């Protein structure tokens, strides 16, 4: 177990380095002089000072050496300055956006997991009943509808027409912070974000549970006269959950993608909105900084799910 975790940690670290290489290359391919990203626009600099900075940053060096210098700066938290926002440093700008995104995604995922698994169990247990067919149809539509369309329609229906939820933002402007306020802003985008995911989880849960219910030990339990609902909850669901857990872990990346559309439509102040605004204004240092941080987060999350999976499933040590 320990050696497995260590091995996974090692690859995670390697991936992070490779990711940083990718980001670095993209940063160099992007139009514009890379030095612009490092000059604090607040500070007036002469041509000579610029050249000195260029030398110090190693921008007159061959690319691999430049990469190492950039990596060193990035590791110490220096991701440069935003071009568009009055010379704000990239790192704090990105960091302050992580919280809202995690909140939105966690809420969306939680809703998706609960509804998806519940619907999956119901569908599998009542296979081919109207409930099953109903859920399956909804799930198919959930998978096949673009996130931004459901977001727009949801916003229109629940905010503009029904006025059940605010039309955007994370907190009421100027109001003192309150959990209720946050929740009222969160619930609609989180529900809309969860749709596609809930559909995916429901389908996996249903298939996985059906398979388990067909297996010998479940039949044995049933034959032994254990109560049906007990069989399902205690034996079958637990085992059927395993592949679903991996699915959830591996779709965090996709959830980030979906969150971008939701954040854009609901003006949610997260990484997605930051990234879209940065792309709109071609603010490359912010784009690259955000990409690096998001990538790092995904790597860490994948790592954690792998470890969690190993903890749940003893077979993994052999594999």
């Amino acid at each position, binding site marked *: 177990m320990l050696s497995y975790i260590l091995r996974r940690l090692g690859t995670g670290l390697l991936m992070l380095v490779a990711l940083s290489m990718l980001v670095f290359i993209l940063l160099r391919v992007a139009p514009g002089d890379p030095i612009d990203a490092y000059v604090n626009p607040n500070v*007036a600099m002469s041509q000579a000072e610029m050249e000195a900075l260029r030398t110090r940053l190693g921008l007159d060096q061959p690319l691999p050496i430049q990469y190492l210098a950039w990596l060193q700066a990035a590791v110490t938290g220096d991701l440069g300055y935003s071009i568009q926002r009055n010379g704000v440093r990239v790192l704090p700008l990105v960091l302050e956006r992580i919280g809202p995104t995690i909140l939105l995604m966690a809420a969306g995922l939680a809703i998706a997991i609960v509804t998806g698994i519940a619907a999956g169990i119901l569908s599998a247990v009542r296979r081919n009943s109207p409930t099953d067919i109903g859920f399956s149809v909804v799930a198919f539509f959930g998978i096949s509808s673009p996130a931004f369309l459901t977001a727009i329609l949801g916003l229109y229906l629940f905010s503009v027409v029904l006025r059940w939820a605010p039309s955007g933002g994370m907190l009421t402007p100027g109001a003192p912070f309150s959990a209720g306020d946050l929740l009222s802003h969160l619930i609609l985008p989180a529900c809309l974000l969860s749709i596609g995911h809930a559909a995916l989880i429901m389908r996996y849960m249903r298939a996985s549970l059906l398979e388990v219910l067909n297996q010998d030990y479940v039949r044995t339990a049933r034959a032994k006269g254990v109560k049906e609902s007990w069989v399902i909850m205690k034996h079958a669901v637990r085992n059927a959950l395993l592949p679903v857990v991996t699915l959830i872990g591996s779709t965090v990346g996709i959830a980030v993608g979906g969150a971008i559309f939701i954040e854009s439509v609901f003006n949610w102040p997260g990484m997605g909105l930051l990234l879209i605004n940065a792309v709109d204004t071609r603010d490359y240092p912010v784009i690259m900084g955000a990409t690096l941080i998001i990538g790092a987060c995904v790597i860490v999350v994948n790592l954690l799910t792998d470890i969690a999976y190993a903890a749940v499933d003893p077979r993994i040590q052999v594999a």
Partner: protein
Amino acid sequence: MQLKALTRTISVAAFLGATALTTSVAAQEPKTVTGGFDVGPGGFQGNFNPLAATGGFTWLNVYFEPLVNYTADLTAIEGALATEYSINADKTEYTFKLAKETWHDGKPFTSKDVKFTVELAKNGETGTVFAARLNAVSSVETPDERTAIIKLSRPDAGFLATLTKLMILPEHALAGTTPKELATSTWWATKPVGTGPFKFKQYVTDQYVELVADDDYRLGRPKVDRVINRYFKNTAAAVAALRAGEIQFTYVEPDDVSAFRDNKGFHVIEGQSFVVNYLGFNQQVPLWKDVRVRQAVMHAIDRQAIIDSLYGGAATVANCGYVAKQLVPEGLSPYQYDPAKAKSLLAEAGWDKINGNKPITWLTYYNTPQAANVMAAVQAMLAQVGINVVPRVVDTPTYNGIIYAGNPDFNQFPLVYAGLQNGPDPSGLNIGLNAAQKPPAGANFLRIDMPELTKAFDTALAETNPQQLNARYQDVCKAMNTNLPWATMWVANRYGVASAKLKDFVWVPAPAGGPYNAHPEKWSIEK
């Protein structure tokens, strides 16, 4: 059945959330006016530096103030921070009597601040957009704390209009910063100090700006406690928030007006935009050198049809930069819609050799659905005569970044779709068309250099006789009509919608957001 239960749970949860929100707002909240003040073409979200402002003056004017300001009907200029002003006979000396006011941080406002601000605005290092417009200023004198005298080296008919946009800044807060640092200082967005009826409280990045009442404002304490300017990615989002009751005011697209017209809960505000829309020909690319090509563009576009259909008739065809009757002379070429003539003009000019059917990027910062429709219509009309333009829509910062770049790539904007203020003071067009106003000095980013036009502007700006002024601007109009630095399109009406709960609320769709004396201290809101 389960689904029903599920939806019920979700709706109950949503309802609980919504009630939580409404109760938290109702709990003895301070009186707040929330609006999308920087939505629409007059706004400039994310800009806090009045020296760099090319728009957004409605909002800046809530916490900063200029010396003089337009009246809310935009017909005259009256005092603001200056209670009165006088001009000497040869129009070279402006004397301002200053109001007694304190800065938001408690320090007194004096004539020194005026001198400091004018000098700052003249200094190109600050990234100011006023340097060229204040060219005529030779000195600022401060005989006492309440008097400022601005001396000009030559008469400048547009000087007072320029001053309305110059927000007075506090010397005591900014003197320690070098002009170059000021350009991008974080001071503007974190702790700016002004003299207006509201003081800056905070800017929550990309979400909103919050101002609170200035208790000792000289014209009386504001009737509401807070004013909040919410940011929206587009007008549609602001309209959704308005309809959801979260904001009380926003600019709206003409398409949206019909939904509010018959609704008792809202007032529709309509006004002339004072902005002439044009297709701007970049003079640094070889496409538009021949005036026949420019004429062909004019003849190829059915402007009246576009106005009748896409603007619902609420716009006026422009055959030069002006549409106001007193500024438009007799005998202008009307450039009637005539695709055949456009084709023959192109053939004469040898368009096939100049460009032929190659795509031409058509850059714009107008990112509204209506503008997209207008551009699609113009694109189709130009395609009919063999000019293949491809719209490229960017947001305002990117647009400014491209056209004002230190070393601009002219191929990125061979053609633009833009607007420029042509009123209430007609000199507004000067900065975009005068050869002396090429960047970095001014806003003539198309590098238009047409001697006849430049001369007409210079004469008009130097005119000291008010009776002759209109005739001078008629000459400008004539020169534009013949030389076609732009293919002028129209001047459209613009709209805002305010909640009926707002009382004494003043807003007009002024170009670049004004400024004008909106007296935010008088705004109030019913529960």
